[in-house]
């Protein structure tokens, strides 16, 4: 389902951009208000509810022992899924994830996996036979723009609260899941040659291009994705990467570092 945005509204937003403004008064590199509530789903091994502006994303972590993948017999398994449930937006339809939902899940996964935030070798119980499986389940509750960054934030926030349920499976005492890095995704959009971070829902619908940068605690990049039908010059990409890493650092320090 698509909805038509009026030309009047597009012009209105363009004109604001020419004046250096955004509809909600933010500056181009400003994020909306973020709140992270942890441990909201007690039954899950870990969980976090992220609010980014009016967007709301709930991430739950479940863990259980299982068989390793044949090509990595001594490593734990991470399985990331995102449900863009119809409750969250008039544009979401019931059914299995479409390409947008799958892309979102794979990006959240990329951040966790490539940053090596979770030591998969340490999740091996019996080499070749039994490893811990971590399910990262992203549940979108309210799409008011940039649910990707919210989901990525939710995933790492939930992992930071996760307790490995060893006792339940007779594998010893429960312990906190060791998390070695805090990957943060920061998304920028481009339209009319202007770059802005953390797009709201209207901004997303008029943007030509989107670039998501996932960065680690040490400032290195561990994931990236360009989406949309527009183009970006290398200078624009470098600029986005610089601002994104700075923003990610701010967000990391404010919300996730204990």
């Amino acid at each position, binding site marked *: 389902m698509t909805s038509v945005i009026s030309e009047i509204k597009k012009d209105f937003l363009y004109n604001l951009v020419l004046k250096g403004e955004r509809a909600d008064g933010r500056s181009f590199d400003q994020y909306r208000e973020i709140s992270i509530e942890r441990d909201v789903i007690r039954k*899950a091994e870990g969980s976090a509810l992220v609010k980014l502006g009016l967007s709301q994303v709930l991430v739950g972590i479940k863990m259980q022992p299982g068989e390793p993948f044949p090509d990595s017999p001594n490593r734990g398994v991470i399985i990331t899924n995102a449900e863009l449930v119809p*409750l969250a937006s008039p544009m979401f339809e019931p059914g299995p994830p479409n390409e947008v939902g799958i892309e979102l899940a794979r990006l959240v996964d990329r951040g966790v996996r490539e940053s090596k935030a979770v030591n998969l070798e340490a999740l091996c119980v019996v080499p070749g036979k039994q490893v811990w499986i971590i399910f990262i389940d992203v*549940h979108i509750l309210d799409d008011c723009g940039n649910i990707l960054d919210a989901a990525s934030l939710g995933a790492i926030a939930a992992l930071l609260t996760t307790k490995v349920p060893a006792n339940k499976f007779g594998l010893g005492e429960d312990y906190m899941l060791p998390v070695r890095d805090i990957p943060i995704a920061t998304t920028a959009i481009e339209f009319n040659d202007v770059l802005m971070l953390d797009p709201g829902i209207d901004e997303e619908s008029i943007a030509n291009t989107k670039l998501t940068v996932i960065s680690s605690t040490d400032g290195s990049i561990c994931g990236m994705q360009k989406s949309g039908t527009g183009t970006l010059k290398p200078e624009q990409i470098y600029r986005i990467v610089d601002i994104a890493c700075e923003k990610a650092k701010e967000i990391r320090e404010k919300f996730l570092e204990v």
Partner: protein
Amino acid sequence: MIAMDETDISFFKDGLRLDGRREDQLRPIKMEVGVLARADGSCYIEMGGNKVIAAVYGPREVHPRHLQDVTRAIVRYRYNMASFSVEERKRPGPDRRSYELSKVSREALEPVILTNYFPRSVIDVFVEVLQADAGTRTAGINAAAVALADAGIPMKSMISSCAAGKVADTIVLDPMKEEDNFGQADLPIAMTPNGDITLMQMDGRLSIDEFHKAVEMAMKGAQDIYQMQRKALVDKYSQLEGEPHREEVQACD
């Protein structure tokens, strides 16, 4: 998982249930109206350990078009459980249970919705179970009714839902997880405040007398829940209502 035998648990101790409730007591309930920005109406509910959110979209255009009814709005209800909502991670997507729950829940609400006001449209109700603790369908219906009101859908009355069960040969109100898993019967109902029943299901085994007692108890529970739904809605309006003092208008800048 370590298997539990129902004989291992004693469901009553000093006349109180495992969570300290009396036979006819509801679990603590919390409701919040209008928690989502995109949805036309919404309600978040906690009933015991259940955490459920309901959203309503509509009336809106029907897709696919061939489902349209020229004389009235169709009502759709989709009950869904988040993967992390249950003890053992659930594969995403509907299963046979959720199809059945969706159907009976829709039939619990449809009798009071004035669908003839909106031909060729659909009223979509979406219920997401974020954490499950026995009684998710009743929590879903309670939240859905409030979400429908919040969306401005015309209804002849509210709908309230509650379950009764039987454990250790005793009829209890609003069974919790252990009582539901190892109990002898489960009877969820939904009704209008006048006592018109719009949903009734039962599994287990009850004598006719026990059945009467369970229905009576569940109906009283639903009546109490109706008062809470009403209060949640009225309270929200009063928050928005607050007539500003003269000073507040001047400060508006």
